């Protein structure tokens, strides 16, 4: 009795075994990059890249395939793609989704939501906006074409690690987008000299792309947003009557927001503490001389301050809040009203940036 039931169970297991579709790794095509762009008025261009292994005797070579589909919706595009493919296309290894500028301007929510809904796709994937059409950005010639699938994810990852842009991924984008008092940003990719490069940040109002900042502004944006640990920037200073350039690398920075008054409109003190080292400079500034250092420091502090305040003003003019002043306001308000904040309060807030720069060292030579 016992043995028979065991046998029956085993038999059952084996017959049912074939019910689930296997996803054997070398029998599926793994999409690594998705591009979504406008084609015509109401048509989308859906581009995917995936690696293909060509078996050539004992040697096998990796090649990258890029395919584009024009259709009304992304779902339909996926279906057509699957019909065309020799092996099933799978989304579990997607690393980057690129959005064309025109799509981004109309709003990304539906696309991002459909990615978020798909449990196959990870939360850490990068989203990015391209300055030109995605297809154009994604077509690279030469050796780099072979790595096109991972090219964009490596590019963004490297820039995050190098701290030239603040950390970003789909989760952070969704967090900001669905937050009342905060607006989202994404890296902006542009093709320069036939090679895609990070251009700066694309700034969003809710899910619509409205404005962008370049890499220089991104440096200050990162400082203001979460006190970045690294990042390098060049400042021009006047030294002994001459115009010189100093490059500093942040070692540590910290930012604090303090609400000074609320009425009639909130005034914020932004304390930015930066510890940095001088990596190079032009001219002959003696950095062992504390007076000279002080002079340089003062000037850099001043230019950080003006840049930051300019940036905040720019955000206010575009009525977007990527720095999250709204969150800070909300966390101290019991009758929080997002619309009122956005329409009347935010454009009128005032932010005073106070920079405290500390120069730690200046390299191994005098």
């Amino acid at each position, binding site marked *: 009795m016992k043995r028979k039931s065991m046998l029956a*169970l085993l038999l*059952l*297991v084996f017959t*049912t075994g074939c*019910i*689930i*579709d296997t996803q054997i790794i070398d029998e599926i095509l793994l999409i690594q990059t998705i591009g979504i762009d406008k084609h015509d008025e109401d048509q989308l261009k859906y581009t995917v890249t995936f690696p293909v292994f060509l078996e050539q005797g004992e040697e096998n070579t990796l090649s990258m395939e890029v395919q584009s589909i024009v259709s009304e919706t992304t779902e339909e595009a996926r279906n057509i793609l699957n019909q065309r493919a020799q092996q099933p296309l799978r989304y*579990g290894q997607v690393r980057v989704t690129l959005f064309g500028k025109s799509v981004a301007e109309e709003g990304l929510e539906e696309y991002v*939501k459909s990615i*978020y809904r798909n*449990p196959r796709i*990870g*939360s*850490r994937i990068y989203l990015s906006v391209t300055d030109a059409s995605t297809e154009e950005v994604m077509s690279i010639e030469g050796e780099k074409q072979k790595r096109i699938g991972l090219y964009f994810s490596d590019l963004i990852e490297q820039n995050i690690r190098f701290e030239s842009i603040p950390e970003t991924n789909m*989760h*952070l984008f*969704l*967090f*900001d*987008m*669905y*937050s*009342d008092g*905060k607006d989202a940003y994404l890296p902006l990719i542009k093709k320069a000299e036939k090679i895609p490069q990070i251009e700066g940040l694309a700034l969003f109002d809710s899910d619509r792309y409205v404005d962008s900042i370049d890499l220089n502004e991104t440096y200050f944006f990162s400082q203001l947003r979460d006190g970045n640990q690294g990042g390098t920037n060049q400042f021009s200073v006047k030294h002994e009557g001459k115009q010189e350039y100093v490059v500093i690398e942040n070692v540590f920075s910290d930012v604090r927001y303090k609400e000074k008054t609320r009425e009639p409109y909130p005034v914020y003190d932004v304390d930015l503490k930066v510890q940095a080292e001088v990596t190079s400079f032009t001219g002959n500034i003696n950095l062992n001389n504390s007076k000279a250092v002080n002079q340089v420091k003062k000037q850099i502090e001043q230019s950080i301050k003006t840049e930051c305040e300019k940036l905040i003003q720019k955000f206010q003019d575009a009525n977007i809040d990527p720095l999250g002043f709204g*969150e*800070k306001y*909300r*966390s*101290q*308000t*019991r009758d*929080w009203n997002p619309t009122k904040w956005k329409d009347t309060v935010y454009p009128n807030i005032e932010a005073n940036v106070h920079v405290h720069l500390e120069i730690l060292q200046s390299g191994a030579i005098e």
Partner: protein
Amino acid sequence: MHVKVKEKFQVSPPMVFFIIHAMQVGVGMLGFQRIIAKSSGYDSWIPVIIAGVVISLVIRMMYYILKVNHNDVIEVHRNLFGKWLGGLLSLALILYFYMTGVLVLRTYIEVIQVWVFEDLPTWVLTVLAAGFVYYVIKGGFRTVVGLCVAGVFIPSILFFILLMPLEYADFLNFLPIWKHSLKDILAGAKDTTLTFIGFELLLLFYPFIKHGYRSHKWAQLGHWASVVVYTLLMIVTLAFFSEGQLKITIWPTLTLLKIIEFPFIERFEYLGISLWLIIVVPNIVTAFWGASRGLKRLFSIKQRYVVLFMVLTLIIVVPPIDNRQAVNTLNEWVNQIGFWVIIAYIPFLCAVQFIHSKWKRKNET
């Protein structure tokens, strides 16, 4: 009909900690955050604690009832309401336990179908689970408890891993504290009680505990351990998601796991869902053990046959619940019943018992 359980089959009082904790932490933990946040938003950690206090009182009441009778709820029903009415109440309670078992199993299969295998037919896992349930319950109550212990220890590593998403935590979300009305908070607390469902099985396994009443502190400890786990998870979730984002996320716990990445493995949720099986299994098994034990006590039939019968009905009952709506409906039903069992029925039973004892004492003197 006063059946005393032999000492050989009893478990020591500390084991109650594991049973209560294992029963409360289950498949509900994957998605409870969203349901509570619907009514209490960023204050959702408060209702968890409130519900914790309420349920702690309910456990106290259960111990009062059981202590007076020194037996399980079947006996209590018979003593208080007589053979027929009491039997009917017992049967209803048994059906409820059976349904919780079915619900947990079906919900877990649902999670697997959404997150891992879209094309997995429900009946495959049901059959495997049925075989497993039968095997475990045949080993007796001690085996069931052993599974509870394993279900607490082995996945405990997951709780530490669930702290890792704090990398993206934004604690500003919590401020200002308590901005929702008391009504919203209480509505949240009501939803939270549902996640704690499962401890009522104590009503049935009480005679299986050595020195029954001494296990009260362990039961409370087990319950508060669950409260701590739920509160911590709630805090992590609220710091991790923005409110709008949380509202569209059905299984926030799995989405939390999704962000975790190790150099050798990405997408931790696949491992998480699989390991969750070890958490879910004690739930299912204990529920069915309770139901079968109840039937045995009620009708004096051999538990072996009852279990076999239950396992077979499982194969018939579960597969027809084949879409998300059906699972949701079942969820709402069982949760409603569970809520009233905890909040209304047990206090009612406690009150009746109290009056009964008073009246009895008066009659004696």
